[in-house]
C-alpha cells in the first residue's frame, strides 16, 4: 500500500548522470528522507517527483496514477499533482501578509470562502502564527518565515509534502525546534513527507526511513537505526555518524591491524560470510572501550575536553583511532598507554593486494 513509487528513474544532464536507475517505495504517512552529500542527486530526485524536471527513463507513480513516464510520454505538470513543497530559502511571497501567503493557493481551488478561512486559521494555529497573521514576512524571523511555508503546505491538504533542505538556513537551536514541529505536524495531520537534506544527524532524527545516495546511485534504504547499526558499505558507514576505518588481516582466526600487527588482537569472532583475508573494519568512536588488559595496545596521542564528551586520538602504529567517551566515566591522560576493546565492528571485504 505505497503512496509514492519511483521505478527505474534516471536523469541525465548532458554527460553527467545525476540520478541512476533509482527504485524507491515511500509508504503513506511515512516521513522519508533523501540524504547525501551535495551533488548526489537528492534534490534532482525531489524535483522529478515534484514535476519540475522530467525523466530520461523510468516512471513516477503516486497512488496508482502515473505522474511521469518517459516511455509512455506522460507528464503531469506540477500544479496538477496536489503536492506541497517547502524550500530552503522559504519561498514566502514578500508582498503578501502571512494570512494571504497561506490563503493564496486555496483561492485558486474553487473552495468556499468559509472553507478557505477554516483551513487557513487551522494551519496558522498549528504553526503558532495566529498572532502575526497580519504581518508581512520581512517583519518576521527566519523561523517564523519557514513556518509560513509549512502552514501554506498544511492548508493545501497535500497527498505528499516535499521539503528541500528546509532547515539549512536556520541556526542550530532553531533547527532542532523546527524538526520537532515538523514531526508533530506530520503525526497530527498524517502527512506523507519527503525530506531532502545533507545533514545526516537531521535525517536520522526526523525520518521513519531514509535513502542514502551518492553520485546518483542509491546506497541504502532503511530505518535510521538500521542504517547506523548496519551500514551496507563503506560510504554509508563513513557518511552516517563518525567512524574509524581499520585496515585489517585475518590470520589463523585472529584479526589484527596492518598498522601495527603486534599491537594485539582486534577480535576472534569473524562473521561466517567473510571469505576474504583482507578486510576494512569500521568502528564508531563511541563503540570502543578502554580496558585494562587484553585488547589492542595504543598510545593516547591527544585528547580534547569537549564538556560532556572527551574526544581521544589513540595512535596504534601508523593508524590514528578516535574514541569518544563520556566525561562521567573518567578522563585519561595524554601520552598514556591504553588498551582498546572494540564492541561493534562493521566488516567490508577487500581484494587481495
Amino acid at each position: 500500500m505505497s503512496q509514492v513509487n519511483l521505478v527505474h528513474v534516471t536523469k541525465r544532464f548532458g554527460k553527467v548522470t545525476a540520478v541512476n536507475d533509482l527504485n524507491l517505495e515511500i509508504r503513506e504517512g511515512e516521513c522519508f528522507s533523501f540524504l547525501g552529500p551535495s551533488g548526489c542527486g537528492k534534490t534532482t530526485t525531489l524535483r522529478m517527483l515534484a514535476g519540475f524536471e522530467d525523466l530520461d527513463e523510468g516512471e513516477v507513480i503516486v497512488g496508482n496514477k502515473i505522474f511521469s513516464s518517459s516511455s509512455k510520454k506522460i507528464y503531469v505538470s506540477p500544479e496538477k499533482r496536489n503536492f506541497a513543497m517547502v524550500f530552503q530559502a522559504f519561498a514566502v511571497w514578500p508582498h503578501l501578509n502571512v494570512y494571504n501567503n497561506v490563503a493564496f493557493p486555496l483561492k485558486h481551488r474553487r473552495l468556499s470562502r468559509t472553507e478557505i478561512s477554516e483551513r487557513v486559521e487551522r494551519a496558522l494555529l498549528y504553526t503558532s502564527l495566529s498572532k502575526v497573521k497580519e504581518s508581512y514576512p520581512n517583519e518576521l524571523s527566519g523561523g517564523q518565515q519557514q513556518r509560513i511555508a509549512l502552514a501554506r503546505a498544511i492548508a493545501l491538504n497535500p497527498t505528499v509534502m516535499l521539503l528541500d533542505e528546509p532547515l539549512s538556513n536556520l541556526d542550530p537551536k532553531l533547527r532542532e525546534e523546527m524538526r520537532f514541529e515538523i514531526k508533530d505536524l506530520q503525526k497530527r495531520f498524517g502527512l506523507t513527507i519527503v525530506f531532502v537534506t545533507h545533514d545526516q544527524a537531521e535525517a536520522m532524527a526526523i525520518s521513519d526511513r531514509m535513502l542514502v545516495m551518492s553520485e546518483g546511485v542509491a546506497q541504502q534504504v532503511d530505518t535510521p537505526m538500521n542504517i547506523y547499526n548496519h551500514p551496507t558499505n563503506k560510504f554509508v558507514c563513513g557518511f552516517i555518524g563518525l567512524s574509524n576505518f581499520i585496515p585489517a588481516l585475518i590470520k589463523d582466526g585472529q584479526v589484527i591491524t596492518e598498522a601495527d600487527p603486534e599491537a594485539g588482537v582486534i577480535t576472534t569472532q569473524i562473521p561466517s560470510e567473510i571469505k576474504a583475508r583482507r578486510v576494512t573494519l569500521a568502528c564508531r568512536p563511541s563503540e570502543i572501550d578502554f580496558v585494562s588488559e587484553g585488547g589492542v595496545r595504543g598510545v593516547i596521542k591527544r585528547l580534547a575536553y569537549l564538556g560532556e564528551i572527551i574526544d581521544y586520538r589513540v595512535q596504534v602504529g601508523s593508524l590514528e583511532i578516535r574514541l569518544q567517551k563520556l566525561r562521567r566515566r573518567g578522563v585519561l591522560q595524554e601520552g598514556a598507554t591504553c588498551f582498546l576493546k572494540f564492541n561493534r565492528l562493521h566488516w567490508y571485504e577487500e581484494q587481495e593486494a
Partner: protein
Amino acid sequence: MAEVKLENISKHYGEHRVIENLNITVKEGECFTFLGPSGCGKTVILRLIAGFERPTNGEIFIGSSLVSSAEQKIHLPPEERKIGVVFQDYAVWPHKTVYENVIYPLKIQRIDKNEAKQRTMQAITQVGLKGLEKRLPYQLSGGQQQRVALARALVSKPEIMLLDEPLNNLDAKLREEMRFEIKELQREIGVTILYVTHDQEVALAISDRIAIFDHTGHVRQIGAPREIYEKPADKYVFNFMGVSNFIPLEIKNGATIIEDSNIPVALQPPTGKKEALRMLAACRPFDIELTRENTGMKGEVKRVTFLGATMDYRINLGEKELRIQQDTQEALQNNLLFKEGEDCFLKFYNVAWFESQSVEMGVS
C-alpha cells in the same frame, strides 16, 4: 613571548558602554580564550589589544611595554605592536598569491631577501599549504584561505597572536581539524594566543584558560576548561557552557520538592551552602540516568530521538521537562532504551546548586 595585561580597561561608544573595568592578565605562552555571546564586546577587546581601537579608560601592556593608555594619551599604532592577527573573514588579499600574502610582513620589515624567502616557505609548509604558493585566493577553499591567514600571522614570529572567531565560516569537520592544528602550532612555537569565540566547544577544546563574558560585557569567570565546566561560578556560566537542565526547588517542611508543586525530589543540597528555602539544581543531559529501579523520581517519556551515538530524550518530571541523553551502546547493552509514553525513573549525578532565580540572595 610576552604576557598581555589589561588594567581597568573600559570602552564606551557614546552612551553605549561596551566594556567596563576589565582586568585580565594573559600569561606568556598560554592559549587564552575570550568566550561570550555575540555583541558582548569580546571582539572589541581584541581590537583594543591589536591597536585598532583606543581604550576610553585604562592601560594595556604587552610584555613590559605600555602600548595604550587612555590616561597618558599613549597609543602605539597597530603596525608597531608585533602582533599576528587572524581575522574572522581571513582577510586574505585577493590580488596577491599565497606566497605574496605570507611574505608581506617580512617585506614591510625589510627582512633580508633570502631569509624572508626561507621563513615564508617554512610558514607555508607549517600550515600544510606547500605546493600552493602560486595560487590566488579565489582558487582556494575556505579552509585553505584560513591557513594562509595563519601562515601570514606566524611568519613574522610575533610575540602574541590574536584570532577572531577564525573557524566560524568552516564546516563542522574542517572546524575540528583546524582546531587541532591551531593547538599543535601553538605547542610547537609556544606563542601566546588570544582567541575570541562564541562557541564553547572550541573554547573547551583549545584553551589553557577561558574568560567567560555575559552580554553586558562583564567577566563571569576565568579558569581552565575543566574548572569552568565542572565548577561553574554561576547559573549563567553553567547555561552557557552546554545544554542544561534547571530545576527550581523549594524546601517545605523539611522535604525538597519542585517549586510550586508537590513532587518530591530525592536531591540533597550540599551542606555548607547558605541555607535557603529556594534553590536551583542544575544538571547536564548525560548526568541524569534513566533506570527501571525505583529512585523516588518518576519521569514520563515525552519524546525519543535517535541521534546515532546518542539517544536524546525529553522527559517530564511533573510539569518540568528535562533533557536527557544516553550513550546508545550502553543503553542497548543494559536494556535501558525507553519508548515514548513509557514511564521511567531518574537518577541524578554531579548536580550543581545555585541560588534560585526568583530570589536574589547575593553572592554565596
